[in-house]
C-alpha cells in the first residue's frame, strides 16, 4: 500500500521535474551558489576564534595586537617558553591521565550496567534502572559541596582520585548502552551460553564487540567532558601540580602581567588535541553525536 503510493508519487514527481523549464533550473543553481557562499562565510567566521588563537600563539609580542591573521614570522618560541616553564606540561599529563582513566572506567561500568539491565530478567531490575536514571536530574553543581565535604573527611582533596571519582560512572552512559544492547539478539548470547561461556565472558566477548559504535560515541563524550571539566577540578585541587589543563590555564591567565600570546599558547595547548581527534575521526564523531543526541 505504502510502496504503491510511494511509486505513484515518485512517477508523478519525476514527470513534474521534466516539465520544469531550463530557467527554473538556472535560478535554482544561482540560489545554490549564493547559499553555498553564505554558508561558507558563516563557517569561516565560526572557526575565526580558533584560527586567531592558533595564529597568536605563533606571533612575536610586537605583532600580537595586529589584526592580521597570518603571523609575519611564525615561530614556536611561545610553545617552547610555556612548556619549559613545566607547569603546562604537568597539567597536560594530569588532564590526559584523568580523562583516560575516567573514560575507560565509564566505558567498562556503563556498558556492564546497561547490559545487565537490558539482558537479565530479575526482580528489582526496573527499580535499579529508574534509580540510576533519576540521578540525571541532579545537577553536578548540587553535588560539588557534598563531594567536597566527603573528600575532605576521606583525605581525597588534592589527589587524582579526588578529581576522578565523580566521573567513574555516568547515568547517561548507562542509558545509552542499555539502548544499544537492545539491538544485540538474545540468540547470540544463548548460543554462547550453550558453548559454556560464563556470563562475564558472554558480555565481554560476545555482546561488547556488537556495540562498538556506541562505545566509541560514549568514549568521545566522556573524554571530551573530562578533558574540558572545570568546576569540580577547580574546587578539589589546591596545589598547582595537580591542576588539570582548564584549571591551570585559568590560574595562568589570571596571573599579573602574563602576555596575551602566552595565554593563547596555553589555550591552544588545551584545545589542539581535541581538534586533532575531531579531524581524524570526523565522520565517526558526528555519527556519535547524532546517536547520543537522538537516543539520549
Amino acid at each position, binding site marked *: 500500500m505504502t510502496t504503491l503510493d510511494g511509486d505513484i*508519487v515518485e512517477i508523478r514527481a519525476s514527470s513534474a521535474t521534466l516539465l520544469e523549464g531550463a530557467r527554473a533550473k538556472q535560478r535554482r543553481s544561482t540560489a545554490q551558489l549564493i547559499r553555498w557562499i553564505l554558508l561558507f562565510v558563516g563557517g569561516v567566521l565560526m572557526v575565526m576564534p580558533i584560527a586567531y588563537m592558533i595564529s597568536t600563539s605563533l606571533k612575536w609580542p610586537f605583532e600580537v*595586537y595586529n589584526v592580521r591573521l597570518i603571523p609575519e614570522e611564525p615561530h614556536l618560541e611561545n610553545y617552547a617558553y610555556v612548556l619549559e616553564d613545566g607547569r603546562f606540561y604537568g597539567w597536560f599529563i594530569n588532564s590526559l591521565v584523568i580523562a583516560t582513566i575516567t573514560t575507560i572506567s565509564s566505558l567498562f561500568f556503563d556498558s*556492564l*550496567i546497561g547490559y545487565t539491565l537490558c539482558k537479565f530478567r530479575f526482580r528489582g531490575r526496573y527499580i535499579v534502572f529508574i534509580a540510576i536514571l533519576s540521578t540525571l536530574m541532579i545537577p553536578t553543581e548540587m*553535588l560539588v*559541596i*557534598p563531594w567536597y565535604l566527603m573528600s575532605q573527611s576521606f583525605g581525597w582533596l588534592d589527589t587524582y582520585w579526588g578529581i576522578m571519582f565523580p566521573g567513574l560512572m555516568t547515568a547517561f552512559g548507562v542509558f545509552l548502552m542499555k539502548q544499544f544492547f537492545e539491538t544485540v539478539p538474545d540468540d547470540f548470547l544463548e548460543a554462547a551460553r550453550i558453548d559454556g561461556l560464563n556470563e562475564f565472558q558472554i558480555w565481554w566477548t560476545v555482546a561488547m564487540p556488537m556495540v562498538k559504535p556506541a562505545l566509541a560515541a560514549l568514549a568521545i563524550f566522556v573524554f571530551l567532558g573530562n578533558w574540558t571539566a572545570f568546576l569540580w577540578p577547580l574546587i578539589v585541587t589546591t596545589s598547582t601540580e595537580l591542576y588539570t*589543563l582548564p584549571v591551570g590555564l585559568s590560574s595562568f591567565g589570571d596571573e599579573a602581567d602574563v602576555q596575551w600570546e602566552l595565554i593563547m599558547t596555553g589555550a591552544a595547548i588545551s584545545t589542539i588535541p581535541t581538534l586533532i581527534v575531531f579531524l581524524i575521526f570526523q565522520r565517526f564523531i558526528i555519527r556519535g553525536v547524532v546517536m547520543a543526541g537522538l537516543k539520549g
Partner: protein
Amino acid sequence: MQRFSNLSIMQKRTLWAWGFLAVPILFFVIIRFYPTFNAFVLSFQEWNLLGARTWAGFENYVTLVNDPVFWKVFANTFIYLLLGTPISLVLSFLVAYQLDKIRFAHGLLRALYFLPFMTSAVAMAWVWRWFYQGVPIGLFNNILASVGIGQVAFLNSTTIALPAVLAPAIWAGLGFQIIIFMAGLRAIPRSYYEAAKIDGVSTWTVLTEITLPLLKPTIVFIVVFSSIGFLRIFDHVFNMTTNDPGGPLNSTKPLVLMIYETAFSSFNMGYAAAQTVVLFLILLVVSLLQLRLLRDK
C-alpha cells in the same frame, strides 16, 4: 562452589546480575544519592566548615529571598537562558536548514560549524576575553577603530558584559545543535516534500506546515538541552571576569557562580546548599515542562 552449581539456571543468572551491579550500586548510592540527600539536609543547616553544624530551619532560604544579590543573580541566570536558547535555536536551525540542501563540500562546511563544539570552554573564554579588550589589545575594538567606530567597553560595561560573556557559550554550542537539526531534517520522509511539490505548495508553506511540525521532537530536545546548559553557565563567566568574578557589579553573575563563591570563598556551606536546591528546582521545572511538551505531541 558446590552450592552454586546446585542453583537453577535462573537463580544463577540473577546472582550474576547482582554481582555485576554490586559495585555500580555502591557507587551510585555513595557518590550520587547520599550527596543529593546531604545537599538537602545541609540547606537547612548552618556551617562554616570549622565550627559545628547546627540546624537553622528555613533560615538559609529566608536569607536567600531577602538577598538582593540573589535576585540579581536569579535575573541574570534567566537572561542567559532567555537570550541564549532562542538565539542559538534560530541560528542553528537556519544553518542546518540551508546546509541540508548543499551537496558540494558538505562535509567541509559541516566541520567548520562543528569545530567550536570540540573546544574547551575555559580556553575559548580566554580567547574571547582577549577579543573584547580595549584598543590596542582587543581584536574587536581594533577592528572597530580601523573602520572609525568608537570603542565598546564589552566586559567593563554593566549592560553589554552579559551578552558578551554569553556569545562564546552560544558559539560553542551551535555545532552540536546544527548536527542534531540536520539529523532531524534527514528523518523527514522525502515523499512528503515530493507530494507538496506536485501540489505546487510554496517553500514557506512547506517549511511551516511540514518541516517545522515534524521537527517538533528535535526542537523540544534542543530547547531543553540548551536551556539546561545556559541555566548552568559558569566556565565562561568565571574565566572572562576573574578579576571580579561575575562583575562588573554582579551584572554577569549566574547562579552557579554565586554558589561557588558562597561555598568556596565565604565557606558558608548551608547557604550555598540552599542555593543549589534552588538551582535543582529550576532545572526540574524546565525538565518537567519538556515532558509536558513531548506528551502534547
